[in-house]
């Protein structure tokens, strides 16, 4: 992710009202993390597993925070149990910011990621999680606002899959 894209994404998260971000860092979107850390509008929570990134965000949602969970696409498979048993079954509005590794437009795609990318959208559909693909940084502000509005309307997790120019 290039610096200006990271800045645009971080600003769009703030503009969408996100104020609590749990994460397990990965390669493609990680440049947003120092920006979020430097901005007191965000509570940034490092975790040891995407599973707890989801449960911590869900707990925060239930006390009035507007949380996002930032993870690599592989993490979606790690946290599916927690998404299902807490976020979906109880119903907590959380925004999943997923680095769409292994997707067709992933600029760092390789044999290590393609098998994951092939199954990522299927996994979201199996969980009945509404999602959109974000490829163009010019659209990120609108997409984050739309996704946040949707997560509040559903009171469920909603996902954005970041690929294309976000993976440079």
């Amino acid at each position, binding site marked *: 992710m290039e610096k200006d894209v990271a800045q645009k994404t971080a600003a769009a998260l703030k503009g969408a*009202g996100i104020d*609590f971000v*749990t994460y397990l860092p990965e390669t493609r979107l990680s440049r947003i993390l120092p920006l979020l850390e430097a901005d007191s509008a965000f*509570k940034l*929570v*490092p*975790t*040891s*597993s995407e*599973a*707890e990134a*989801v*449960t*911590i*965000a*869900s*707990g*925060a*949602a*239930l*006390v*009035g*925070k*507007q*949380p996002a969970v930032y993870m690599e696409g592989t993490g979606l498979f790690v946290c599916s*149990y*927690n998404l299902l*048993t*807490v976020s979906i*079954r*109880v*119903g*907590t*509005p959380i925004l999943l910011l997923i680095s769409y590794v292994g997707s067709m437009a992933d600029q760092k795609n390789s044999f290590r990621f393609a098998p994951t990318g092939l199954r990522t959208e299927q996994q979201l559909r199996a969980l009945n999680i509404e999602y959109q693909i974000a490829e163009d940084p010019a659209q990120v502000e609108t997409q984050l606002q739309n996704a946040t*509005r949707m997560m*509040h*309307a559903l*009171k469920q997790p909603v996902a954005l899959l970041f690929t294309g120019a976000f993976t440079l």
Partner: protein
Amino acid sequence: MNRSACLESLVPHITDQLVVPSVSGQWIWGHLTKEHDGNLLLGSMGNALGVGLGMALGLPHRKVIVIESDGSVLLSLFNLPTLGALKPDNLVVFVFDNEKYSGSRISRPSATAAGTDLAAVARDCGISHAVEVRDLDSFKRESQGALSRQGLGFVVAKVEETLEHRQAERSTADLTENKYRFVRYIERTEGKAVFRGRG
């Protein structure tokens, strides 16, 4: 030591704390404190610690209590280093360790029966005040201390296996109804909206 007796000893200390039980003792706790709107029912293993941690970070001025079991903590052991790193000073965790998967109905042993010491694991993860207790008086002393002071509390209570939870009265409220009860309680007591968006 008996888990129900431990839970009963906590009841007089419950005022406005937020309480997240895992599957261990959820029905007993729910029955003992059914008037308390600050209980959040999850009905699943491996999630209570994370959810409670999220609440504690989201409302740092409010005390949060998590009621866990050995099997549930073992399922999400990665919570402990995160807890030790973040050290929220408004969170108290009780782990009722009977060394068994009682819910399996055939009481298969958990790893704590083979020697895993959850209080020691917690201390090694940076939860410096983690303690293990084996009798009710010690539980009362440690639990009251943890509830009354600022600081991350972690009390592992070694208890015998009982089947009392199977006889406990169960609420008919499902997870969604329970969630809204909890959320409205937060809104009443914190004076702010929890969920956003247009009506």
